[in-house]
């Protein structure tokens, strides 16, 4: 499938470094994400992929380097309000889903609408909640509790909550981990569908090759805190590098 991408970079990372104690997790990371692009970051567990996207939303402060989102340097943002405004434009799908387990599906969806977008009109809230739930195929789950949902449904629900703010960039942290192959494929296709509908740009952290194949426009391979290869799925599948090729076997 060919998607139309702008040349405009929505994320630009230069010389990013992050260490925890003596463990250097990110080593001189350079990365850009174009508008409308789906970028997959491939790598083994514990290689710093999640740390990278947490740096992008300022959940983790990097030691060195620059992260520009929509041309704004996130590492030096002046105040909470600026950061909040930037975060409103970025959606983050956590690996665990991170659903608010004391709230119903409806309340989970209403939470960002009320508190972030400050929408008070109940009719609009209801309409947006219904629309986004139908988008992810959970139209009848509105009054269920997160505990009543299956793993796949929880991922869909988490995606619905991310999408309800209509973000321009979506960061997916291992969206298919812990799911069976059929549900994984459904979630991967949902990521594509979402990208088409919302014209969003995405970074997808994964080690699920089916997910990478379905969703990626471009893939970067991460090993020991640095990118060692970059290309399309087909290019990397035929790479000369053993480590990169080992993902495709």
């Amino acid at each position, binding site marked *: 499938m060919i998607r139309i991408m702008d040349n405009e970079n929505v994320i630009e990372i230069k010389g990013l470094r992050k260490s925890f104690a003596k463990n250097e997790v990110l080593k001189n990371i350079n990365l850009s994400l174009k508008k409308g692009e789906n970028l997959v970051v491939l790598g083994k567990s514990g290689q710093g992929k999640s740390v990278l996207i947490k740096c992008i*939303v300022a*959940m983790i402060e990097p030691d060195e380097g620059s992260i520009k989102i929509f041309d704004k340097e996130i590492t030096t943002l002046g105040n909470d309000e600026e950061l*909040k*405004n930037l*975060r*409103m434009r*970025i*959606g*983050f799908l*956590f*690996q*665990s889903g*991170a*659903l*608010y*387990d004391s709230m119903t599906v409806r309340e989970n969806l209403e*939470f*960002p609408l009320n*508190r*972030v977008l*400050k929408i008070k009109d109940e009719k609009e809230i209801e309409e947006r909640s219904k629309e986004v739930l139908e988008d992810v195929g959970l139209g009848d789950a509105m009054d269920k509790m997160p505990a009543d949902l299956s793993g796949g449904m929880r991922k869909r629900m988490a995606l619905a*909550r*991310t999408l309800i*703010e209509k973000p321009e960039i979506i960061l997916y942290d291992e969206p298919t981990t812990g799911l069976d192959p059929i549900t994984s494929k459904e979630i991967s296709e949902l990521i594509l569908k979402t990208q088409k509908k919302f014209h969003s740009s995405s970074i997808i952290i994964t080690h699920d090759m089916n997910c990478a194949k379905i969703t990626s426009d471009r893939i970067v391979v991460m090993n020991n805190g640095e990118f060692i290869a970059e290309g399309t799925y087909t290019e990397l599948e035929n790479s000369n590098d053993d480590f990169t090729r080992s993902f495709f076997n």
Partner: protein
Amino acid sequence: MASNIRSGLKNILESIGDQAAFFSSFIKNIFKSGFEWNEFGRQCYTIGYRSFGIVALTGFVLGFVLTLQSLPTLKQFGASGFVPSMVSISVVREIGPVITALICAGKVASSIGAELGSMKVTEQIDSMEVSGANPVQYLVVTKILACFLMIPLLTMVADGMAFIGGFAGINATSSMSAILYFRKSFDGLDFSDLFPAVIKTFFFGLTIGFVGCYKGFNSNKGTASVGLAANSAVVTASVWIIVIDAIAVQLTSMLVYN
């Protein structure tokens, strides 16, 4: 040895700085627009109403036992008529506020610590933050303010029930009319007994809410840290309640009783 002391001192100072920053963030968020009135009401219900039973029962037993324990001794001196005022003064000044606060440290601080700890571990707090919502305003401000308001009210409930318990205790061994008992109880009390006691209960409430929220909010990853946050919240809040009480008694003695 010296490096151990240095690193211990560094940890203590870091912890103090961290708590000061958390408290300042709590204060700032009280006055930010968009106060969470609904959540505040829900927390008042959870912290106040749901603790009502245990606090009322403890208050009643406290008054009852205090009366039964002191009655024989005071009888020997022919001073059994002083039992109501003795019970009321000791309950209002000291036992009521401290016991209520310790019960709430066990019940409320641990539950806040566990709730926020589990939200932290399951990335729910991170998710709120990343979405652009304000978790401190929604989770911390509402819980601490609810404790601040509810602990004094629960203390009043405990005090009232202790009076009733005292009345039941005195009538279990001898006989005294309700009018006489309560008149003697209130005659023994002065404004200087009530005012400092009420003031300190606000500090107890603030401590319980703050410690519960801080421990929960700062729990590490992993399910074990949830239990640790709950446990640490109870222990820390209880110690602080005793310390605050000691300071309050000293201040009251200096400013009111001298």
